[in-house]
Each structure stands twice: as C-alpha cells, then as structure tokens.
C-alpha cells in the first residue's frame, strides 16, 4: 500500500519507464501483433504498470501516474514512428490541419475579441438583441455553417467568382464562421463581468475610453485566453464544415479530421486511430502553450 511521506517519483524512474515502453512497443510489431490493438494495448499497459508498481514499490499516486504515462508514451512511440514513416501524405495532411485550424482561430480571435470587448463594455440599448443573436449563433450547427459557406462560395453562388470552394482558404472561412461566435460570446461574457470597480478605478486614474478598454482587456486577459482556447478546440475538431467546403481533395484540402472520416468509410481503422493520436498530440501541445500563457495572465 502506498505510504504517505514517501519520496515522489524522480525523473530517472520516469525515463526508465519510458524506455521500457519503447522496448515493449517496439517488440510487438516485430512479433506480428496486430496494430488494431494499439488502443487497448496502451490502456492495458498503463493500467498494469500502475498496479504493479503500486503493489511492489508503494509509491505515491502522483509518481505512479507519471510512470504509467511515461510507459504509455514509450509504448506508442515506435508505432507512431513506423506509422509516420510508412504513410503517404501524413506530413502534408498534418500541416494543412495546423494551417486551417491556426489561421481560423487567429482570424476569429482578431474579429471576435475587439467586438467582444466593445460589446462587454458598452451597455448598449440593443444589448438584448445582440445577446439573442449570439446565442442563436452558438446553436448554429457547424455542419450547417459549412453548408451555407458552401452555397456562398460555389461558382453557382454569390461569391463564386472568388473561386474559393474546395480550397484551404475556403475551409478557413467556414471555420471562422463557426468559431467566431464562440470566442465572441465568451469574451463578451468575461468582459462584462469584469468588476465595475475596475472601470471606475481606471476612470478615476485618468484613463480615456481607449485606455479604459485596454485596461478592462488586461483584467479580463485570462478569460479572453480561455475564449481563444475554446475556439481553438472547436476549430481543431471541426470535420463536417471543412468536409463540405474543402471536398477532401488529395494534396489540397485533406486534413486530419476529414481523413479519419474517409478512413472509416474504407475501414482503415488503424490509420484513423493514428491520425486521431496526432490530433490529440497537436491539440495537447497548443493547449500546453496556451495554459502557460494564461498562467501569466492570472491575477
């Protein structure tokens, strides 16, 4: 049984488990175990490690989790490397996913945050109307947004002359339509709930309207970053809208999420799981960075 007061896990032990995972994960394909079991394998091995070490060494829980995690990562590494090396277009698909997600998140941020600050600051008369519109947009299914953008950008449609259907920029536009209301709504909410005293204090200290807005934004920075993170989460997981508007054209508009869909259509499940893992890792890295950034903005 774990004993309190025992020394927490140090880095060397975690590295040991990482290496152990790499060894086990590297042997499995060699002895011909089917890759489809990868998901079960990760969970099972992490669980087994957890129990083993808990019984044998009696470590504190936090150290156990780190070890289990290290083992899982090590387990997956050889498979991931093999997967990336043997799959065509994986880098291009990943790059495009990153591009579409990143660009749409940034564009949506650039539109939604200033608008959200303005809406949150000024107690406009039509605020109820704005809020109703906003909540309607929240409920807008992304796939419907994709359909609307498709009809707009199609050559038969009003913006057809731009030739943006089935292109990366078209996908960005579709995602911007989906993500902007989300960032806008959270920013407005966060900014309007900034203490009235903040605005008053800034006012008393001599801030003009622009400086007051900047100060409110400074106070709400942590909340605004949350809005951006939620928007990013929406963007990276979007599949319906980008499928409709992008068309999943090889070498042009294939992203991780749409490729998972077509993989399932073609029963290439292992490939799909691999892509999903890449998605998780990408998202995880971005979130880790954003959390770091957010820490600096907390009061």
């Amino acid at each position, binding site marked *: 049984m774990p004993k309190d007061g025992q020394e927490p896990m140090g880095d060397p032990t975690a590295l040991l488990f990482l290496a152990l995972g790499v060894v086990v994960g590297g042997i499995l394909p060699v002895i011909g175990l089917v890759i489809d079991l990868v998901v079960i394998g990760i969970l099972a091995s992490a669980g087994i490690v957890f129990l083993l070490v808990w019984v044998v060494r009696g470590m504190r829980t936090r150290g156990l989790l780190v070890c289990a995690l290290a083992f899982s990562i090590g387990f997956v590494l050889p498979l991931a490397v093999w997967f990336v090396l043997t799959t065509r277009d994986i880098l291009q698909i990943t790059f495009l996913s990153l591009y579409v997600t990143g660009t749409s998140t940034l564009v949506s941020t650039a539109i939604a945050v200033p608008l959200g600050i303005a809406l949150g600051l000024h107690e406009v008369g039509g605020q109820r109307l704005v809020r109703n519109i906003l909540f309607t947009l929240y409920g807008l299914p992304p796939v419907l947004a994709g359909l609307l953008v498709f009809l707009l950008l199609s050559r038969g449609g009003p913006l057809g002359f731009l030739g943006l259907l089935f292109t990366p920029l078209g996908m960005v536009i579709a995602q911007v339509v989906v993500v902007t209301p989300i960032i806008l709504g959270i920013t407005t909410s966060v900014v309007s709930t900034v203490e009235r005293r903040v605005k008053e204090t*800034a006012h008393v*200290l001599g801030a003009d309207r622009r400086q007051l807005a900047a100060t409110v934004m400074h*106070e709400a920075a942590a909340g605004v970053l949350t809005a951006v993170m939620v928007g990013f989460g929406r963007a990276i997981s979007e599949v319906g809208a980008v499928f409709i508007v992008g068309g999943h054209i090889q070498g042009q508009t294939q992203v991780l999420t749409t490729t998972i869909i077509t993989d399932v259509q073609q029963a290439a499940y292992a490939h799909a799981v691999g892509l999903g893992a890449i998605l998780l890792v990408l998202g995880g890295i971005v979130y880790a960075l954003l959390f770091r950034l957010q820490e600096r903005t907390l009061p």
Partner: protein
Amino acid sequence: MTMSLEIEGVEKAFGPRAVLRGVEARVRPGEIYAVVGPSGAGKTTLLRIVDFLLPPEAGRVRYDGRAPPSGPIDRLALRRRIGMVAQNPLLFRGSVFYNVSYGLCVRGVEGSELLVRTLKALEGVGIPGLVNARASGLSAGEAQRVAFARAIVTHPDLLLLDEFTANLDPANVNALEAAVREYNRATGGTVILVTHNMFQAKRLAHRVALLLEGRIVEEGPVQEFFENPKDPRTRAFVNGEFAF
C-alpha cells in the same frame, strides 16, 4: 500645483432617500480639509460627486472658481488633476509597478521618467522593495500604500481620500498619514480627507467640516472645530455623543 474647490448647494438622492440636501463648502488651495460625520452621512457620495463619478441632483461644484467643462477632452484634463484613494481600493492584475505607474502611463509618461517617478512614489509610502511583487498577494496595509502611491504619483492638484486608513493597523496608519502630510507639504496640493476618525482629522487637517444629515453644519480651522465648536451638534459629535 493646487486647486480650490467650491461646493454650492449640492443635492443628491438615491431614489426616495435624500443623502445630500444642499452641501455648501469652500476648500482653499493647498489645505488639508477633513470631512467628518457619522456613517451613511453621505461623505463618500460627496467625494464621488467631486470626482465626476456621480451627477448631483442640484447645485454644482466649481474648480478653481470655474464650472466643470462640458467638452470630453477638457473634462478628462480636469479629472486628471484629481486623484482619489478609496477605502478598499481595487488593484489591477499584475505587479505593484504596473499599478503605481498606471496613472503616468495613461498620461503618456514613459521610459526612465516613468521608472524614476514610480520608484519615488513607492519610497514615499515606505515599500520600495515591493516594486515587482504581485498586487494580488499584498496585505491590506501594503495594498493601501500601493493605492496611495498610485494616486499621488501623478502629482494631482486635488487629492481625495475616502476613509483611506480605516481597518489598518497603527503602523500603516502612521506611514500613510506621514505620506499625506509630506505630499501636501512638498507639492502644495489640496487634500480632502473623509474620515470618521476624529483623531486622524485632528492630526492631519488644517480645516474640518461636519457633514450631518446631508448638510455641512459647521466648518472651521481644526483647533477651533474641536475646542470651540459653534454648533451644538458639532460639540455633541466631537464628544462622541452621536451613535455612529
């Protein structure tokens, strides 16, 4: 620099409750003018009207003998000559430096001048070592000193203090009172000190006024106010006979 203030017939009501019923007061440039009175008498409301945070129902305030300007730019310029420290001040997220230098930043001061003046203000309240500290981690006394430094770093012509040492321990009270005295001496700025602590009024003020039931019932030089008040209510108040 400094400012004179004339409060003429100011009335303010919140709904059915009339708080100020015709306040008359004259604050001379460069003096420390204390406003005392029981809680709920409207002292804070009066200060907020002076600082344009509330509009009066009737009456007006004149700054240096002139009515407040109507244009937003001139209004802003006037407001920037006034500083205020409230009882539980709100400090912005970030460092003490950010908070104290805020007023200067807003007025376009930057670079080494910003740095020097901010540090000087912190020295003035005795906490130069806290310059990089997080504002959210300060004790009440430290926070109040930061708020004070933040208010005076811009050298306001008029400084409004609203019960600014209430709930503080004697050490902090002393430090802040010394800072007020020094500020008034060094810059000649006018100070309006709202307090229910008569001893503080006695220690700091040049002139004192009693705000009672929405009116200034008596104002006068500090010594006279306490030793020889003209109004019987003042006498009762000074003797602690009012429940407040």
